[in-house]
């Protein structure tokens, strides 16, 4: 099945064309989540789906050359650490755990900053979790 996939010219061309837009849309969802529907979780899924599409069409080996195992493994932990780190930072700056008001002089600005970072953490973890799970499943049959 994998070999057939690699020979499909239309699929390869169209997916190569689509992947940048999927990534761009994921970033839009990530950073625009404050203003419209979306947020870290959805953005992470969409970001990962671009890589999953690449892996489906070009094979998991080539996907692993694009995102090596250590990248996804570290990003998996990095996202959670970023989220929890924002909480710890707000504690160090005199607030409660995950109390974003403490992050900045202006409470509103602190909230914005905190939410942005936290959503980024969610997005990073979700994206790398999805890629990890996909590769774990798809990399088995060889």
């Amino acid at each position, binding site marked *: 099945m994998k070999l057939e996939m690699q020979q499909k010219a239309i699929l390869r061309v169209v997916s190569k064309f689509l992947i940048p837009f999927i990534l761009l849309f994921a970033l839009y969802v990530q950073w625009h989540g404050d203003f419209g529907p979306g947020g870290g979780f959805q953005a992470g*899924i969409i970001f990962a789906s671009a890589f999953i599409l690449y892996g489906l069409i070009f094979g998991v080996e080539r996907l692993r050359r694009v995102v090596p195992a250590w990248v996804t493994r570290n990003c998996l932990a990095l996202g959670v650490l970023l989220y929890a780190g924002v909480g710890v930072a707000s504690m160090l700056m005199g607030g409660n755990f995950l109390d974003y008001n403490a992050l900045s002089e202006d409470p509103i600005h602190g*909230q914005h900053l905190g939410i942005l970072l936290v959503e980024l953490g969610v997005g990073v973890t979700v994206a790398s979790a999805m890629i990890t799970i*996909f590769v774990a499943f798809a990399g088995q049959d060889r």
Partner: protein
Amino acid sequence: MVLLVFMLVIGGAIVRLRSLFAVVMLSGIFSLLGAAIYVVMDAVDVAFTEAAVGAGVSTVLMLGTLALTTSTEKENSGSGWMAALALVCLTGGVLIYGTLDMPAYGDKSAAVHHHVVPRYLEKSAEEIDLPNVVTSILASYRGYDTLGETFVIFTAAAGVLAIIGRRRRTRRGKKNQAEGSENSDQRSSSEASS
């Protein structure tokens, strides 16, 4: 309503079909219809998630699972189908009975709209000042919950890695070893040593 009928038809088809490939595809469509229903109910964020996760990624993962296992359902000639049907009907009946207590959709006097939601909706603009209240609830008011969810996802990926992702972990040590020649004994031994 039309969407619900579609979902019912697809659910029936999923039960009847033996080809698991078609079942996976239909469950993706089922999720997409669910997402459409969420849009109709103005829950765009949930719809977004349902479309991305239910219709997108989980379909791909199910296909990956099919590639690992088999793509046709085993013929089940067991005689217990009557009991199974009775059990399913009973469970469904209990679930429907449970929904009878629930307030009507859009009911302003429903309990969920009177706990903390008014506080969030009224104060969110001045405390957090984000146009999307869903984001401010998820990330700020309910920051602990979202942190917990992130940990759940982290744990899920870590669990998958621990169970079926062994080959990748062994590769760290012996990177250029021939791909196919690693047998499971080597994997488990290096697993134990690491």
